């Protein structure tokens, strides 16, 4: 009893996020995710507070912890000074470390996030860049984005002298020495290991699901598939 809670307690966000919850439900009342999904941050916090291994394992393998948008609207509202959003962050981190995230549809999406955002950070030094916001993956970005995407050198050239080149200014290419520092930071601080963990567990699960490993096809499945069982 308490094994998973002890692991969660290694994360400072659990200490900051959970003192003692009185189950008032204020967090759920203001939560934008609770309005959309079958999601109740009060219940998540209440479960973690029980320290019950079975219950916490169910959370770590389930859909619910992946619904939160980390908006932190719950933080200033909780009368007991808890932050359910922080508790969620600690749960998500542990779920990935233990490989439990692949047991839920929403959890499996971490592979897409790792590849779309994480790998882009290592490639460019930015979370996103114009050339990785592909109009076919972002129909909601509309006609103007398509125009920007197709004419990026010209559109950005109006605002930056260094678009995709080194120097000071918007959308500059980050110099090699700085990129080496970023890579080293990911290496020594555990960022790379975490990325590898996501890849390895995804690969295992993908094979279990009949894919040839964590292929592009599997990644796109996690990115696009919605069972509609979340509301």
């Amino acid at each position, binding site marked *: 009893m308490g094994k998973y809670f002890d692991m969660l307690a290694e994360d400072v966000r659990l200490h900051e996020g959970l003192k003692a919850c009185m189950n008032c439900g204020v967090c759920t009342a203001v939560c934008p995710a609770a309005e959309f999904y079958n999601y109740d941050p009060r219940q998540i916090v209440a479960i973690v507070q029980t320290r019950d291994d079975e219950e916490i394992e169910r959370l770590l393998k389930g859909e619910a912890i992946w619904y939160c*948008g*980390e908006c932190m609207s719950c933080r200033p509202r909780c009368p007991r000074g808890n932050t359910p959003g922080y508790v969620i962050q600690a749960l998500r981190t542990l779920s990935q470390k233990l490989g439990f995230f692949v047991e839920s549809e929403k959890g499996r*999406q971490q592979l897409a996030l790792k590849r779309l955002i994480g790998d882009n950070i290592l490639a460019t030094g930015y*979370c996103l860049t114009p050339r990785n916001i592909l109009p076919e993956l972002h129909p909601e970005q509309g006609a103007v984005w398509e125009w920007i995407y197709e004419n990026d050198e010209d559109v950005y050239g*109006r605002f930056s002298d260094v678009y995709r080149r080194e120097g000071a200014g918007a959308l500059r290419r980050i110099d090699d020495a700085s990129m080496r520092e970023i890579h080293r930071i990911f290496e020594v601080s555990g960022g790379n290991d975490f*990325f590898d963990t996501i890849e390895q567990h995804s690969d295992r699960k993908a094979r279990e699901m009949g894919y040839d490993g964590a292929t592009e096809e599997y990644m796109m499945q996690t990115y696009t598939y919605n069972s509609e069982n979340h509301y």
Partner: protein
Amino acid sequence: MRRTSWQEYQKDIASDKYYYARSCIRQNFFPGSERAFLNILGRDLGIDIFDDPLHTSCTGIGYHSDVVPLETIMTVVARQFSLMAEAGYENFISSCITSFGIYNEVLATWKEFPETEERTRKYLKEATGRDLVKPRSIAHTSDIIFHHREAIARKAKHRLVNSHTGEPLRVVEHIGCHYAKIFPKSGIGGSEFPYVLAGMIETWGGDVVDYPERRHCCGFGFRNYLVQANRGSSVANSHKKLESMAPYKPDFIVANCPGCAMFLDKWQYAIAEMEGMTYGADGRGIPVLTYEEMAGLVLGYDPWELGMQMHQVDVEPLLDKLGVEYSPEAKYLGANGKYIGKPADVAVNCFDRRRIYEIKR
């Protein structure tokens, strides 16, 4: 609570000598805003602001997508701070609400859990050879514009009033959750009465619209937008806000965070395409501005030099109200004045007359 409760949450904002940390989302979607900010401070107000070619993303979107670990983002943040100190600055300003939240969270965590700071120092040294030096002050770039709002008003070419009727324009302000919900004391006005944008609007002659969902999330929700399968959640939140503000007939929306500005703009397009619903007057969308664009228009900057052609919802109806002169031909020019074609017409834009949509009030 009185409307002036914002005054309980004041913070010290440095007046000069800023180290500028740019934002991934800002530079992708609003590069003109970024340039305007640097010009307003450096050129118009004669303030020392340093744009360092060495800093990187804060990796905040990766962190809030739960793929970048806390230890990693702390070390990336520590590197940014060290670069600031090495460049001889101590007032760190960031141009994005996500990163502003990150910088504050990292500093607060170091303070609350000193062992995390020690670990970060070690990682930083090992990875980069640099030493962590913490900033004297942290501010968001909108705090800086707020701080200098009177100086901007003194140089104003336009006020936020309808130049035809003389009435103040009705402005919806959107603060962005991570500006003050994480650390209320780090935002002007706190999380209940954030005043950073309202202060600019009032100083420059506009009226701030109060409406029920004023504090609701724009709909980003990180993974709830970034993963295609989850985008229903994102648009539902923007939809909720738009439905709530439309009866107040705002002339425009101004957002604190480049992400929020982008979502409130783009989701209007998507809702018009999906539902045939538009929220502005005359069946058009409601223009969504960044505060840099708002300040730029007040100062008489050209709207296309501000990058307002990169919005999905056309801004021309607002420019006409403000009495801003602009050249329609210059809108879609690329670098060096070359014409590069224009985006396809869509429902939410004012120049589309081919389809008739239900007009929201």
